[in-house]
């Protein structure tokens, strides 16, 4: 019978996961010890799990319960393995797993997503470029443009507009990093200038500095009412695990 794997930790105890329900079709979560690191698993009747709201939250509840006590390394949702696969993985990856556990110890992951009004930012950038362009044309006192030249000019403005978006997006990411400062231990930041969700950041924060982190984030949000912030956490350190099999 295969196992459904939730997470692993070198500090988890049976007590932390007692009376918990696992994903559908799986038994109660239990620990299997592999030389100092325990895997939190459930015995599973099937070979795979359904991606349902219930299962998603069941997975996260189990990992979250462990996170309330210590920082585990979470498995990706849907990890179903045989006993021998799990044992092989735990034994062959021991050093890697120990290093990852040491890296995240005492920390949690916080998520900040920044949403901007892409259309408005694009319009402003285009208007600025058009203004610059017409000023240049006026100064040059040139003849009216032909169709080809007008097309090239519009293309140039479009490219300049994209560059302006990239630049503004990077500025938002840098601004946020600066405001949070050393309250963040490590970060993974994705900047997407061509999308409404312009910055997606995962922050690794020491538990003892969580209050400071949240205070800094609150202040930053007040500073930029033009941006919408989606924040969540604490999470297990999903974004700080180097996937490896």
């Amino acid at each position, binding site marked *: 019978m295969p196992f459904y*794997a939730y997470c*692993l930790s070198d500090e988890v105890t049976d007590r932390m996961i007692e009376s918990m329900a696992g994903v559908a079709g799986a038994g109660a979560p239990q620990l299997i010890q592999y030389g100092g690191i325990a895997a939190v698993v459930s015995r599973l009747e099937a*070979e*795979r*799990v*359904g*991606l349902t*709201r219930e299962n*998603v*939250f069941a*997975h*996260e509840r189990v990992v979250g319960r462990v996170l309330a006590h210590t920082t585990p*390394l*979470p*498995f*990706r*949702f*849907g*990890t*179903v*393995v045989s006993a021998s*696969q*799990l044992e092989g*993985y735990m034994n062959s990856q021991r050093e890697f797993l120990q290093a990852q556990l040491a890296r995240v110890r005492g920390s949690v992951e916080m*998520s900040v997503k920044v*949403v*901007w*009004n892409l259309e408005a930012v694009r319009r402003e950038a285009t208007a600025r470029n058009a203004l610059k362009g017409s000023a240049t044309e006026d100064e040059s006192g040139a003849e009216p443009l032909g169709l080809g030249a007008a097309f090239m000019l519009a293309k140039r403005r479009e490219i300049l507009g994209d560059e302006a978006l990239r630049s503004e997006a990077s500025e938002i990411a840098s601004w946020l990093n600066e405001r949070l400062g050393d309250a963040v231990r490590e970060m993974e930041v994705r900047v997407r200038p061509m999308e*409404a969700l312009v910055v997606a950041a995962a922050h690794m924060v020491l538990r003892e500095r969580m209050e400071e982190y949240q205070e800094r984030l609150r202040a930053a949000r007040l500073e930029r009412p033009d941006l*919408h912030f*989606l924040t*969540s956490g604490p*999470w*297990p350190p*999903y*974004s700080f*695990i180097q*996937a*490896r*099999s």
Partner: protein
Amino acid sequence: MIDEELDLLEESDLSLLETLDHILARGLVITGEITISVADIDLIFVGLNVLLTSVEKAHEVLRERENRGDSKQETVDSSQ
């Protein structure tokens, strides 16, 4: 506008989306591929990247590759 649209999302929807964003795309992977089912359709994560496709589609692509004798690495995604 953005604020209004985001406000339309219920807290529970955001929570589910955030959870999915974390648990489907990241985390330790043991076997290199993970199969889950959505509405009784098996879906497979190929490799360690977030490439989600149906098992049927994955098999189809692998068969095509075998038929071509193509040794080149190829990615599979849901858009194919």
